[in-house]
Every structure is written in structure tokens, then in C-alpha cells.
């Protein structure tokens, strides 16, 4: 059975060019970049080149980048550094739809005495900057808002938000794990202090991430150890991962246009056809202000996990914001923050595409989804034989 992979916000295929770039650093060039000998030292040179490739994608200076192990580490490092370098400040502002890498950390910090403000979003998942303005206090150490949402793709106005924070002398961090490679990012044109990237979301390997730290920003390392990364992140470099990420960023710059033309077109086709063919379905999140690859659709009166498992039988991979898939009893915090009713949230499916997806795959999914939903609705006590929702529930 062929796999149709529409779960690219969870992780992506390593690009063949990236894999080719990485392989020599496992097999032959396994030296430690910190070593004195040429055998190791030549790896250090390749890491420098990768740093330049990543910097080029972001419009950053190479020395502004700290390689980490993942997006979560980058997020944790950024927020903890802000708190360490501004020890007198005890307030953090985030949104209600942040990734767990930020939200769970802030919950943890709240137990240690930090005050957390979670900004609301509207029914389309958009952030109102007025709410941000009102939340900032002289005690605020850092604002952390994601650039593109992983579940809905909704884009936050982070550049304007960073300006607002800066005017009050507050640090600004953004989790750009989903946005990087999908929408243009140019750090020369904004005042964002710190930004997180994850390699495996843009066709590099798992186990590598980046934290951008603007030149002049005080930084306190999260991992303390050797002198690597200019003493901003101890630990022997993940040389193959970093070199692969460099290549992936180079490819992302080339593919950015494709993401916004052909990937967007496929996403739109998938979305429009599913909405047309499946009654009582709707999109979660702002249709315009969105990453080009993501659509989050709710199918009312059916449950997300059951949908995913039937899709799985056909080799179609996606994910759901239903409670049952998370192990908790409540559906996705993102959909709840948007006020999506539980009846809709339980049946939400996220499709996230990449440049490797084809029109044939989209057509296959368009053909297979309606019978899946129909089959489950046929079992649902809330759906009567006439194919309509029972109104007494």
C-alpha cells in the first residue's frame, strides 16, 4: 500500500539532497569539529558553511544562530534566557494557542512563582494586538508568540507584536517552527530578539534545531558545557544534522515560491472539494491569513480518532485535534481557544502538505474521505437515516 503523507506539520520527509549531504558525516567524516586535527577540523568548516546557509534563509548574521537539538530546546532556551538575564522581572506573555514547548514550560514556571498571561484568540484563531498592548507591564520579561500555528496554520502578526514589546523594553521570542520555509522571514526587517526553528519540519532530520539570538541580545545558555556555539550551547555538535539543515534551508529558499503556488493550490483544492462533498463540515482557522500547506477541517457528528484509523487503512496519514487522539479527555487547546464547539472539535482533521505531495494524492484523498465520514456517521447516534443531524441532541 502506498503511503499518502499529509501530516507534514508533524514531521517531514528528509529531502534526498539533504540526506546525501548528511551521509558522509556518519560514514567517513565522523571527526569532532572541535578537534585540533584536520580530520575533525574540516567538519567545523562545513558547520560554518551550514550556518551561512541557515542565516541566508532568515536574513540573519551567521553568528546570530545557535544550533540546538530541536524546536522545544530552542523555545525553552529562549524563555529561560530572558528570565535569567532579567531576574527582577517575573511576568511572561504568551497566547492560548502556543505549542506545548512554550505552554507547558510556562505552566511549569508558574509553579515557581512566575506570572503568565495567555492572550486569547478570536474564532478564526487571530490575535488582537490590542490585547497584547494591554497585557504588557513593567514586570514583563518576555513575550513569546508563535509565527504560524501548527494545528490551523493561522499566522500571528509577530513583527508588529515584537515592535510593541520593544517599545516597552520587553524581549520578544517567536516559535517559527511551522512558518520557516513556508512564508518569507527576514530578520533584517524586524526587531524580533529570538526565533526558534526545527530541522525536521523543513525536510532536514530530527534532532537538530536553531535558536536565532539577535546580535546584542543578552543570552544565558540552557545547556552549560563546552565552548561550542560560542558558549551559548554546550555539547558536541550534531554535525550531520546541522550540515543537513544547512542544505534544507538552501532548498527551502528555492521552494518557497512553490509552497505558495503549487502547494497552496493543492491545499485549496483538497479543502474546497472536501467541503463540497461532505455535508456539515467546516474549516477551522482564518482562511486567508494562513500557512499555505495547512487545512484543519471539522466533520461534525464523527470522532477524529475513528476517522484517522479508517484513513490509515488506506495509507493516508493526517492528524486530529480530537480528545481521543491526545490521551486527554478534552479536544485540542487550539480549537478550544478559538471557541470551536466540542461537537466540531472532536471531528477535526488536520491535513498538512509539502512540496513532495502530488495532485494524484490529493485526488485520491478527495475520493476516499466522503465514504469514510459517511460510514462513521452511519454508526453515529446523532445522524439519522436521512443523512441529517438529529436535532434533539
Amino acid at each position: 500500500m502506498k503511503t499518502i503523507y499529509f501530516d507534514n506539520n508533524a514531521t517531514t520527509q528528509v529531502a534526498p539532497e539533504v540526506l546525501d549531504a548528511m551521509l558522509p558525516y556518519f560514514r567517513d567524516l565522523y571527526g569532532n569539529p572541535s578537534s585540533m586535527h584536520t580530520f575533525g577540523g574540516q567538519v567545523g568548516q562545513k558547520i560554518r558553511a551550514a550556518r551561512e546557509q541557515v542565516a541566508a534563509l532568515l536574513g540573519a548574521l551567521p553568528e546570530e544562530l545557535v544550533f540546538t537539538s530541536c524546536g522545544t530546546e530552542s523555545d525553552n532556551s529562549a524563555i529561560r534566557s530572558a528570565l535569567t538575564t532579567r531576574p527582577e522581572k517575573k511576568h511572561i506573555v504568551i497566547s492560548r494557542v502556543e505549542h506545548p514547548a512554550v505552554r507547558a514550560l510556562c505552566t511549569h514556571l508558574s509553579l515557581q512563582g512566575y506570572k503568565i498571561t495567555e492572550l486569547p484568540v478570536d474564532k478564526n484563531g487571530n490575535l488582537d494586538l490590542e490585547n497584547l498592548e494591554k497585557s504588557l507591564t513593567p514586570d514583563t520579561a518576555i513575550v513569546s508568540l508563535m509565527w504560524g500555528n501548527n494545528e490551523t496554520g493561522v499566522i500571528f502578526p509577530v513583527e508588529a507584536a515584537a515592535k510593541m514589546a520593544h517599545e516597552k523594553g520587553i524581549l520578544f521570542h517567536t516559535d517559527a517552527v511551522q512558518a520557516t520555509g513556508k512564508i518569507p522571514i527576514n530578520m533584517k526587517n524586524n526587531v524580533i530578539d529570538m526565533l526558534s526553528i526545527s530541522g525536521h519540519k523543513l525536510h532536514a532530520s530530527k534532532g537538530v534545531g536553531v535558536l536565532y539570538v539577535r546580535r546584542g541580545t543578552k543570552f544565558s545558555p540552557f545547556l552549560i558545557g563546552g565552548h561550542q556555539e560560542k558558549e551559548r550551547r554546550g555539547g558536541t555538535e550534531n554535525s550531520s544534522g546541522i550540515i543537513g539543515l544547512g542544505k534544507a534551508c538552501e532548498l527551502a529558499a528555492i521552494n518557497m515560491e512553490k509552497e505558495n503556488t503549487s502547494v497552496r493550490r493543492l491545499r485549496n483544492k483538497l479543502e474546497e472539494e472536501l467541503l463540497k462533498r461532505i455535508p456539515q463540515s467546516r474549516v477551522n482557522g482564518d482562511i486567508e491569513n494562513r500557512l499555505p500547506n495547512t487545512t484543519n477541517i471539522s466533520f461534525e457528528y464523527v470522532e477524529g480518532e475513528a476517522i484517522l484509523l479508517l484513513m490509515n487503512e488506506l495509507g493516508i496519514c493526517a492528524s486530529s485535534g480530537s480528545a481521543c487522539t491526545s490521551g486527554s479527555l478534552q479536544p485540542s487547546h487550539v480549537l478550544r481557544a478559538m471557541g470551536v464547539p466540542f461537537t466540531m472539535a472532536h471531528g477535526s482533521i488536520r491535513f498538512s502538505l509539502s512540496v513532495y505531495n502530488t495532485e494524484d494524492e490529493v485526488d485520491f484523498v478527495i475520493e476516499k474521505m466522503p465514504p469514510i465520514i459517511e460510514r462513521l456517521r452511519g454508526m453515529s447516534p446523532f445522524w439519522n437515516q436521512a443523512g441529517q443531524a438529529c436535532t434533539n441532541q
Partner: protein
Amino acid sequence: MWEYTEKVKEHFLNPRNVGEIENPDGVAEVGSLACGDALKLTFKLDENKRIKDAKFKTFGCASAIASSSALTEIIKGMTVDEALKVSNKDIAQYLGGLPDEKMHCSVLGKQALEKAVENYRGAPAMEAGAKIICECFGVTDKEIERAIRENNLATVEDVTNYTKAGGGCGGCHDAIQQIIDRVKAEPKAETKPRLTNIQKIRLIEETIDKEIRPSLKHDGGDLEIIDIIGNRVIVALRGACSTCKASEITLKDFVEHRLKELVSPDITVEEASK
């Protein structure tokens, strides 16, 4: 991804008895759309008052659908009294087990069954004297008590896994804890089963590890099992205990007392000759 058994997957992909029986003898609807799972059960009896047919309609995840399918298969051919004895554990066992977080799916089946039988008998929908504890998911104290007893639940999290109670706003966690404490404090009616020698030796070791050794270690002492002959447990005292003048009292009043209480009243403890 959930670790479902093949049987769960099979019942999810090919559910038995989907639908609704017209003019059923018993009918029940439990759960709700907001909860994330809901089940409508209908059954019909034959002339001998046995369940001739049972059908379900379920909104929910794979394990909710599989549990409903299993339930209808289990109760077919039973009298309603026999069917009432089917527990949520029976449903889970029929499916080769369910992940902990999904046990509430089997409880949902059990609840639907009870309500359908009540409907058949014309009894009130809610158990007499039952009180809603979890407002978010509409779970009563009686349901929580029963889940604790039948599945030997120990924590609020267990109760949430089995009944959903406490999985919403969390406002009822204290109330659930109180129910757990109350049920735990109930005297156990069951008598201790007869142990085989191997079971007894294991139980002695376990009791010493969990109940006795930690207390001794707290005072800098320890104890080692040298041999177990019938009901004679021969031990050597170590650490601070080996030089303690009160060690004889420790052995009889503490070690032997605990083993008599937790393993068998016939146990005696002796110190190995030094």
C-alpha cells in the same frame, strides 16, 4: 498511536450489530457529543426472555465502537439478569484488553446496558440516591464507587481513565479523592485465598520489601531472608539492627506481626544463628 489489540481493530473495522432495533424491549442512550463518545443501545427479547438481538449506534473513537460491538455480541442469548452481571472488565477482556486511557469506553458500554435494562423494567433512569459528582461529564458518585470497587482504582487519574469523571474542569478532583478514601476504608469481605508454597514465598518477599524493609532502613537497619521452611521465616538482621539490643522485639513485634497480618497467621520469624 494507541496500542490496540487485533481484536479491537477487527471490531472497529467490522463492527457487529450496528443499527437500531425497531420497537425494542430496552433502549438507552449514554454519553454525549460534548463528551466525545456516546452510545445508543437497543435490545429485543425472545419468548424465553433471552436477548434475541442487540444493536448499537456509537459516536466515538475506535475503542468506543469496538467496545459497543463487543457488548452486543456478549449479551446476545443472555437473560437480562445474566446481562447485568457483565462488567466493563468483561467487555475489555473480550477485546483482549484496552489501553488504560480508553477503559472509559468499556464503562460506557456497561452504563448503556444497565440503563437499557432499567428502561425495559420501567425503573428510574438514575440510581436511587445517586448524585452527580463530575458536572462536565455527568458522572455520579455511584458510578465512580462501582468503578473503584470493580477495578481496584487507587488514584483520581485512574478514576478519570475509567469513568471520565474529573477529565474536564478538574473541579471535582477533591470529591473523587474523598470517594476513593471512603471505598478504600470499607472492610474487605473476601477471605484470603489459600496460597501455594511458591505464592507464599513470593508474598513474604514482597511484604518484606514493601512493608518491612523501608521502616528498618529508616533507622539504618536492614534484614535478609536466609530461608523459608513451611511457615518458618529465617532471617538475618543487618546494619544497625544487627547490633541493636531491641532486635528481638523488632523481629517479633514488628516483622512477625506484619507477616502474620499480611501473609498468614501461621508465620513465625526466627533469627538465623550468627
